[in-house]
Each structure stands twice: as C-alpha cells, then as structure tokens.
C-alpha cells in the first residue's frame, strides 16, 4: 500500500487547497495519470500518480486545506 502526499512546492508553501479529485475510490490509475488538482498561493498543480494500481482510500476531499507533507490518498499497487 502506497501513500500519496502533498509535495513540497515553493520556498514557503506550508499548505495547499484540494481543488478537484479526478479519481475516486476504486478507480485504477497508471503512472503519470493526474489524480487531483491542488492550489497553493503560488500555483495550481496536478499531482501525478507514481504507481500503477487502485485507489483504495481518499483521505481529504475537494475544498479541504491540507498541510504540505500530509497524505491525501492510498493506492494498492498492482
């Protein structure tokens, strides 16, 4: 089981907003698929999947503010 976390972005970004999830629990993802769009004070970014697998759990929903480094979903690698 792999956790996807909010990456470090920019020199002072401490938290980001989750804009839109592009996948839901149960969906399959491939390496490179954009899973979610997030917004920091500096930019909007899409977070890509680093694994092939199934989304097992979404930990934070659309509209939530999440600190950098926090896990936002879990993936079961296939």
């Amino acid at each position, binding site marked *: 089981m792999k956790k996807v976390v909010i990456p470090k972005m*920019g*020199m*002072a*970004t*401490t*938290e*980001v907003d989750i804009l839109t999830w592009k996948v839901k629990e149960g969906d399959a993802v491939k390496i490179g698929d954009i899973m979610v769009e997030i917004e*920091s*004070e*500096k930019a909007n970014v899409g977070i890509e999947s680093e694994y092939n697998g199934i989304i097992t759990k979404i930990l934070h929903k659309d509209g939530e*503010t999440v*600190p*950098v*480094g926090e896990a936002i979903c879990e993936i079961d690698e296939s």
Partner: protein
Amino acid sequence: MRELRYLHAVQEGIKQEMQKNRNIIILGEDIRHSLRGITKGFFEEFGGERVIDTPLSEIALVGAGTGLALSGVRPIVEFQLSEFVFLAFDQIVNQAQKLRYMSGGKLSVPVTYIVPSMGSRGGSMAGQHSDITYSYVLQAGMKVVVPSNAYDAKGLVISAIREDDPVMVYLPAKCLAKKDIVPEEIYTIPLGKGIIKKAGNDITVIAIGHFVQVALDVADITGEKGISLEVLDPRTLLPLDKDLIKNSISKTGRVIIIDDSNKTCGFASELAAFIAEELFDYLKAPIRRIARTVVPVPFSAPMESFVIPDKQELIDVVHEFDI
C-alpha cells in the same frame, strides 16, 4: 465579494500602486520570474526598467534602494529570505534608516522593504532559513508592519510604499496562503493603528502575524471554558498603537504577548516593557510572553515544534492565570 490569498493581496497592492505611480521600481533576486510569488507577472506588465533582478549582492541591493530613493525614485526592495537582511545590515540600519536624521532632515529615503519569511513551525527550513528578523531593525527605529490577513496586507503594503521613510513589510510564511475578502480597488490602512480582532474581558492577547489566527482559534476554545480572550492585532510594530493596547489592558488587566521572533530583545520584550512601565496600575497579574526559544531553529520536526510556539503554548499560558 472576492477572496484573495494573502500573497496575492500583497501582489495586487504593489501592482496597483506601481500602475498608479510610474516612479516606483522594484528590485530583488529572482523577481522577474518571481521565485517568491510576490512579483508574478510584474516583469511582463512593467518591463525590465521597473522590475530588476540584481546579482546576489544584498549590500548593493539595499544600497541601490537608498540611492534610488535619494534621487527621485520610490523603490521597493524584495528580500528573497528574511535572513538576507543580515547581509545588508549596515545599509539598512546604519545608512537608509539614519540618513534623514543625520542630514538634519534634508535627505529623504522613501524605500519599502518586502520581507517574506520562511520561518514557521513545520517548515523544516533549519537554522538559517527560518528566522523572523524584524526585531533586529526595530531597535534602530525602523517602521515595521506585520499584516496578519489578506485584507490588512494589501492596505498596509500600499501605505508602506507611500510612506516617505524606510518601512519593512514583514510577510509571515504561515499567512501567505490564507484567504480573505479583499476589495478590488486601491485602499490604505494607516500605519500605527492596530485592531481588536475579537473583544473579550479576561485576558488581552496581543498577537503578531500568523499568531492572530492562532489566538482567535484559542479564544474559541477557552471561551467554551468560560475564559474570555480579547485578541489585539497591532498590525504596525513601529509606530505602535499604544492607545489601543492601553484601552484593552485597562479593561482586562491581564496580557499575553505571542510573537514568533526570538524571546531575547524581541518585539514581545518591547511590548512587555512598555506595558510594565506605563500601564502597571491596570495589571492584575504579571505580563506573559510567548516567543521563540533562542536557539537556531533545529531541523528535525519534533525539535522544531518544541522551540517555535503554537496553539498549545497559548492555551497553557491562558490557564496559568487565576481568573
């Protein structure tokens, strides 16, 4: 009504002022590509004559700001990191801040320093990238504003730019992403005027920067236990709104100062001394300060959390009062 993030509110304030006054030039490192995000889009809009990337030369950067200011231009100097203030310390406190006085009022230095910090709990930026540095320049009598929210940030940065003296505009890292309703038109918030963010009766909490929101959160928590906090945001550290502080403390008789700079000779010390000296008769209990432990900020997260205060420290100190 439109919401803007604090960083974008600062950006909009500077941009609108630069659109209004063509004599404003902004200088800094990596500001054309806007590494810190404040000047995003400025190079495209205002051009290379007004948006200048300097070499890694803080002494020349600040000195150039002074020379520009003496010569009919209104410069804004962006520091990439708050510690870079140390590199140019002579030019800031020994030159820019002193020239007006030493010249008998003949030299005028209308420069604005924008200092975005990275210092905050959880940033893991370690000893040389985590400082809050305004206390060092306050001692020289430099005007300093620390907006706590996006609305104040835009109004204060515009006022700072219009001020004819050096002003340091300090942007705490933890404030940068926060959203608030920000009017689209130009507006100013005067220097030297603080604000009561939440009225209360038992303890005055004077909070600086991102600690304003922390104090408001704690006020909700302690409010449920029957302890009423009054949250006071000075907004400008120098000149200080002494009357606002006096009115609050004369009502509550108790004060906690929470500031994210070092405890020794930090801004909380100045507030505490002023309150003890001039408002002693109103006090029912000793003044309490919550500030940073005086060590270089350690890298590892548990240690960093230990030395930089946050919500729990404020809650603990609130409960130390006999109310």
